[in-house]
């Protein structure tokens, strides 16, 4: 997806959070007026869906209207979801009428200042995903075989994690948690946590973040984006983590890049994979979590927090092939936590449970029919602490 908004920290950010929450991978986020260059960028990206927001209700309508006009020229037939200032919805819709892009309407992602409203738009995005993408990618045969809920995998995972965390009316869940899905191309992080400041004197800045938050790092992946991991942390870090010289790492990373299907074959490659995994998780966690900064004011220093404080979260669910088949998950996670900067509000200590049987998304689907059965199974697979080492 591509997300567009007005101010980077406000509606652009809200649009991105909403798209992530719907299970999408956001390739690029735009702010302010779209330019011809931006439209060219979008043409190159060829998104499956574009989310257009901007302005609180009754607020700025000029920019979203301008952007709707610009998007009319964008190539392709990707749908455009309008979820901005409600006073501008009609005009945007009529501007886009007659373009190659079908238009869907949703409630504003930020109807009032600093108030996120991502559920309605996430629902619309999921519906489009199922209707269009699944059809386009030939997955409609699956639809004809099963007559039930179809859901994009990330949003099924999100549902499963939310149920595991919150529980239902009868059975309590396990409480706040984070989850990491380390894949070949991306690294997804989920947090089901309030993330409020731990210290009451800390000032919270910026848009309040959703309790159920998902982010996708499109530059961090074990194969297609192994180079991205190397660029994010630097060769020395990978060298330190693996105990191997930098040129060995460069060589292997390059080999992975050229042949993403490659599995580690010897001790050296296993060590490099472990280092890549730690580095990807460390970076993705740091980007997902908030940061704490000390700022100097006329009345003395204060601490300010932006984003979620996850330092008190103690439970981690891991999924994705690279992790669940690894023999050293605990080591990978311990190294990832060890790489965090002191001001990062990432978890400090984690009990790890791995999705060894790849059931997370299936249980998310089951939750739609048989919530309590799904919950019991989730607790069975991920709720037992004694089975898991403490990192």
């Amino acid at each position: 997806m591509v997300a567009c908004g007005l101010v980077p920290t406000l509606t652009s950010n809200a649009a991105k959070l909403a798209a992530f929450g719907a299970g999408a991978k956001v390739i690029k986020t735009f702010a302010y007026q779209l330019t011809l260059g931006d439209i060219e960028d979008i043409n190159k990206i060829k998104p499956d869906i574009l989310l257009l927001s901007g302005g609180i209700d009754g607020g700025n309508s000029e920019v979203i209207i301008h952007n709707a006009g610009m998007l009319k020229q964008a190539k392709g037939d990707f749908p455009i979801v309008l979820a901005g200032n409600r006073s501008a919805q009609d005009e945007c819709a009529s501007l886009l009428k007659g373009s190659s892009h079908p238009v869907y309407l949703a409630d504003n992602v930020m109807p009032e200042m600093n108030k996120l409203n991502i559920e309605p738009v996430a629902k619309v995005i999921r519906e489009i995903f199922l209707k269009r993408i699944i059809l386009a990618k030939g997955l409609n045969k699956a639809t004809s075989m099963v007559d039930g809920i179809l859901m994009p995998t990330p949003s099924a995972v999100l549902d499963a994690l939310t149920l595991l965390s919150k529980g239902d009316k009868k059975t309590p869940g396990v409480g706040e948690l984070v989850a990491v899905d380390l894949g070949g191309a991306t690294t997804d992080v989920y947090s089901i946590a309030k993330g409020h400041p731990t210290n009451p004197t800390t000032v919270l800045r910026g848009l309040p973040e959703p309790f159920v938050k998902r982010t996708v790092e499109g530059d961090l992946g074990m194969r297609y984006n192994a180079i991205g991991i190397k660029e994010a942390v630097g060769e020395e870090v990978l060298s330190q983590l693996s105990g191997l010289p930098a040129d060995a790492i460069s060589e292997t990373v390059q080999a992975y890049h050229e042949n993403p299907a490659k599995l580690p074959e010897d001790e050296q490659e296993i060590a490099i994979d472990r280092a890549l995994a730690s580095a990807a998780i460390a970076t993705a966690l740091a980007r997902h979590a908030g940061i704490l900064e000390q700022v100097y004011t006329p009345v003395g220093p204060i601490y300010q927090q932006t984003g979620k404080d996850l330092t008190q979260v103690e439970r981690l669910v891991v999924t994705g092939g690279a992790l669940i088949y690894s023999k050293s998950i605990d080591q990978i996670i311990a190294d990832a936590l060890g790489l965090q900067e002191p001001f990062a509000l990432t978890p400090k200590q984690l009990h790890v449970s791995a999705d060894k049987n790849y059931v997370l998304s299936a249980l998310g689907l089951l939750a739609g029919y048989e919530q309590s059965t799904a919950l019991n199974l989730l607790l069975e697979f991920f709720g037992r602490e004694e089975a898991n080492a403490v990192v």
Partner: protein
Amino acid sequence: MRKTLVLGVIGADVHAVGNQILNYAFTEAGFHVVNLGVMVSQEEFIEAAIESAADAIIVSSLYGHGELDCQGFREKCDEAGLKGILLYVGGNIVVGKQPFEEVEKRFKAMGFDRVFGPGTPPEVDIACLHEDLADK
């Protein structure tokens, strides 16, 4: 059309009571108030004004460091495309007791359209808003 005001207490200032009173008074007077509360940075005022297409930004400062906190505010508004937006400031905007005329002059030089001395009741502010926003 209903006018939109962005309201907040600037800088590291935590005096919250006056802000709540102003929020109440402006809302009662028929304005759409986007209240950012206390400890608001210049950037946060500006970003909120952009998203809400605000007609005016009402800055409070009570702890004495208003002059420092307000420096460069107008220039940043201009830069952000909020050219000519109405800017008011009030509260205890400077340290201690200083002749108000001088204080007013300094804040006007910084680009504030109106400057209000300590203890100005909200009604005064509201009357000024009606006057200044009448033709906008």
